[in-house]
């Protein structure tokens, strides 16, 4: 299966592991990730303001490129995923907004939300299948107590993201099980780390990150997995006692791809 793959800005620098392991694992699972020749940063956050068009255009162009390639669009970073899916939802469901965007872009064919967008986790669940993934595991994560850290952008708003039950998710836990690890459930797994507020109020980000890390540690987690570079940064910067890794790294490790991933 060939899909259009959008790494996003941060996966090209500080979150290279998230990208490299995603590519290696997809190849091993028989999925070809095709990165568009040109793309722009998604902007990191989706504005819910009705009257903003310009800040959403990079996502629309990306969605349109995937539609023109006749492919689904796959994202890995939680923030890219949130921005691209929210933009796609607006293009499909808000005809006045879609009309303004299409007039602004002034291209021959209008775009109205046709592209199917998958987060990489959804690709594993819905296309590969966790049962098949489990069969492909070469080095199961046996005995590792792992907590899923969803944060906010991966799941919410639930009706737009349509990924999982936003209040009681299980997709990352199911991945951990498929990879042979032991799941640790803790209360704050879908609470916000503070996100971009660490630029404005580091103390607020520190407080939120510490609450999450302490909650995971007290529940017995020895490792946290995330899809978001900013979650990882905030948790680590604020001294999480539990190490934080990207889910793609865990995936590559279980598939036996980790040693040669950075060759």
């Amino acid at each position: 299966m060939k899909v259009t793959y959008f790494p996003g800005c941060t996966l090209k620098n500080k979150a290279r592991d998230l990208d490299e392991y995603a590519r290696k694992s997809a190849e091993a699972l028989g999925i070809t990730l095709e990165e568009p020749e040109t793309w722009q940063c998604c902007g990191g956050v989706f504005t819910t303001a009705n009257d903003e068009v310009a800040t959403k255009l990079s996502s629309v162009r990306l969605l349109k490129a995937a539609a023109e390639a006749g492919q689904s669009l796959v994202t890995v970073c939680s923030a890219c995923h949130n921005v691209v899916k929210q933009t796609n939802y607006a293009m499909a469901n808000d005809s006045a907004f879609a009309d303004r965007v299409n007039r602004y872009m002034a291209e021959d064919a209008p775009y109205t939300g046709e592209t199917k967008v998958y987060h990489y986790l959804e690709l594993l669940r819905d296309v590969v299948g966790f049962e098949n993934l489990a069969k492909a595991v070469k080095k199961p994560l046996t005995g590792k107590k792992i907590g899923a850290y969803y944060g906010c952008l991966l799941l919410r708003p639930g009706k737009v993201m349509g990924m999982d039950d936003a209040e009681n998710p299980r997709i990352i836990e199911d991945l951990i099980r498929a990879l042979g690890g032991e799941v640790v459930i803790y209360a704050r797994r879908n609470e916000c780390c503070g996100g971009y507020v660490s630029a404005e109020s580091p103390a607020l980000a520190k407080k939120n990150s510490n609450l999450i890390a302490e909650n995971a540690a007290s529940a017995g987690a020895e490792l946290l997995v995330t899809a978001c570079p900013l979650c990882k940064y905030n948790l680590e910067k604020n001294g999480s006692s539990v190490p934080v890794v990207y889910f793609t790294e865990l995936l590559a490790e279980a598939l036996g791809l980790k040693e040669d991933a950075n060759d």
Partner: protein
Amino acid sequence: MTNEQLKQEILRISNVNVTKCMKCGKCTASCPAYDEMEYHPHQFVSMVNNGDIQPLLNSDSIYRCLSCFACMERCPRGVEPAKLVEAVRLMAVRKQGANRMKAEDVPCMLDENTPGQLLVSAFRKYSK
């Protein structure tokens, strides 16, 4: 602008129906920035409804919202308070010279691991 004009502008940007609120307070109870906010999510809803926008525009509360959408997800009436906070914040930073974050602020917030995602997100939220 009059209070009514400010209210209509916020409603236009956010497309939120504030009259659906039943004042249960679940948005505020869910808010991870609660302690840092002068006005809390449920107050944004009632103050917008009352046309009491100026105090919100002048409050740092609009820069404390994390856009985590917890209040939207958990509202039993689908009121979507985060969209109101976003609209008020935009009304504030869209004014000329009102950027909350400036390019020259960036170097001192960088460390070796700062992800690009943090900077682009913060600029989108705090500047125009």
